[in-house]
């Protein structure tokens, strides 16, 4: 699964990924994360420690790709890739900036896009609306790319702890720029969308929800794909079995070709292999859904 973070400068992308990793590394209801590269792990943990003391990481000055693995019960369950960009890449021409070109390609290949929107800026600066518009345009273009499973688009309202949502019309001002996009994702069965307020300061809020939602849909896409492969193998095996005769076995052996019976065996074997890949995902997917139902209910 490919997860891409999309947001302007200082929207909180690098802070989020560090804090999210540290929180998930500690573990939540049996789920955890680990980075494939030890260096990434060290950088995330150190940055998260700094954030707890009010020291925020430097914004990303280059594209970063992190290979992470979802764990359940201490066992690796689902590997995924997390991509971070320098916020400025959003406002650069593809013809001039290799990083902008990479961003567009990565967005097209993304299974999940995390949009980072600075809630404080949206509440206090009219330019926030226009910045949101630029992001929406990127997301819409990315969603044009063909995909096999459901795509996930989550808008993370960062710095929510700095916004007084109790004040009249603040909530509307902060969320309105993404209203049409979220309506669009809501009305499509192939896209999952949502808006999650997060805080990444010393008192973090809803940090784990975006990543776990993405991983849940990634897992279910994977389960669906594996199930479909198993069904195909089994259907083909049944079709072949109907043509299995003693004569076919003799002739096939005589001419050195695979008989229908051999093919049936190979297909059953392939189905079994896919089934072995599928079963370890089922329990984590169920547990994750249970956790998310509760957590999302609390956010709503």
């Amino acid at each position, binding site marked *: 699964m490919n997860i891409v973070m999309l947001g302007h400068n200082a929207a909180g992308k690098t802070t989020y990924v560090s804090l999210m990793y540290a929180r998930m590394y500690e573990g939540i209801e049996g789920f955890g994360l680990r980075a494939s590269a030890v260096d990434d792990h060290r950088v995330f943990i150190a940055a998260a420690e700094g954030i707890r003391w009010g020291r925020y990481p430097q914004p990303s000055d280059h594209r970063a790709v992190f290979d992470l693995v979802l764990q359940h019960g201490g066992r690796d369950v689902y590997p995924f890739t997390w991509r971070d960009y320098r916020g400025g890449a959003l*406002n*650069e*021409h*593809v*013809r001039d900036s290799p990083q*902008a070109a990479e961003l*567009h390609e990565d967005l097209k290949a993304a299974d999940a896009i995390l949009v980072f929107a600075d809630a404080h800026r949206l509440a206090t600066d*009219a*330019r926030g*609306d*226009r910045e*949101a*518009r*630029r992001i*929406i*345009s*990127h997301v*819409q*273009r990315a*969603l*044009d790319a063909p995909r096999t499973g459901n795509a996930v688009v989550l808008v993370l309202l960062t710095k929510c702890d700095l916004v007084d949502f109790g004040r009249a019309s603040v909530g509307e001002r902060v969320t309105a*720029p993404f*209203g*049409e*996009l979220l*309506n*669009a*994702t809501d*009305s*499509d069965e*192939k*896209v999952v969308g949502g808006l999650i307020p997060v805080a990444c300061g010393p008192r973090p809020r809803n940090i784990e929800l975006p990543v776990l939602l993405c991983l849940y849909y990634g897992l279910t896409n994977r389960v669906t794909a594996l199930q479909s492969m198993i069904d195909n193998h089994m259907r083909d095996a049944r079709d072949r079995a109907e043509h299995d005769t003693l004569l076919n076995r003799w002739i096939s052996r005589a001419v050195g070709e695979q008989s229908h019976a051999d093919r049936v065996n190979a297909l059953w074997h392939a189905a079994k292999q896919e089934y072995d890949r599928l079963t370890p995902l089922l329990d984590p997917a169920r547990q994750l859904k249970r956790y998310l139902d509760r957590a999302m209910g609390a956010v709503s």
Partner: protein
Amino acid sequence: MGVSKITVTMLGPSHSGKTTFMYGMYATLSAGIEGYFLNAKDPDKDLDLMDNWDLLCDEGQLPPPTADVPISYEFVFKHGVRSLVDIDWMDFRGGATVERAGAPESLSDVVKLRERLKESDSIYLVLDGRYVGEWIKDGAPATVTRGPMKVSHLSNHISRTVEERINAGLPAPSLVVLITKIDVLAEITGMPKKDAIFRAMDNLQNLVPIAFSEGVTTLICPVQLGDFGIGDHRKVDPAKLDVRYMHKPIIFSLLYDINCRIARDSRRLEELRARGQATEGELEQLRAGFWNGFFKRSQIAERIDGLGGIRAAVEEVSQELETARTRVDQLWKELNTLRIVEDGKIRENGKSR
């Protein structure tokens, strides 16, 4: 229903507001409005449009006039995240639309525009609200053929295009009469803005007779970027930005395109059904008689195969028609406050008056 492509061309003299309209339309639709979205396929073009819009919002700087080389845009028009139509849009400089192609001083874009009009599925005729205001003030006469709006010259382009396309067996292009800068109408005419807009729409046949011609379907769409009023329009007060109706013309262009497709598919459906009936008749004849079922097996099998293919095609076209009609109903809702003229008759809420 597959995604089709439509070609849109704007006609209007320099400074009539063509480029500004495009920027306003893009700014409105790129973030989505009423569920509709518009995106440039090329991210660099998207960035250029957004950057220019930011300049307008931050500094009140209007987009620069289009240079001698026309700028081409490929847009995707969507409802939600689903593409409805691809749009081939080209922004010509105003001069290209009013210069003569044969004149020695004419540039290549003049020739290019003439060629492009032939391919255009939708033409936007841009009338500058300042001059429309003057025209209303003068009593909306029928004799304005020359003047800054260049209506006569532009109408010739349109009528030639309509004729050429019909001769080529193509549907006539849809026409949008865009009245830009409607914020100045009240100040120029001395009437309330709404009254001035209705006066313009009620008398538009005097100004743009081609829009009321047989075979032409026209949307009359007043638009504004803001409440800037008359004055120096090289720079405007960003605080007065108030974009109105900019997304409606493209909805109309799509609606017309779908209606053309419905007409084409309905004809195809009739043909398929007729072929189906003929094949069923042939099959019946082949099966008639005691021995035919045996001696004409191959012919019977061929007809059965053919009938299966026809039935599948009927099913497919019927489904496409149903989807298209649902889409048309949805699009009409977006246009029900505007005036549409079809073969010279005004339609309201999707029905002829």
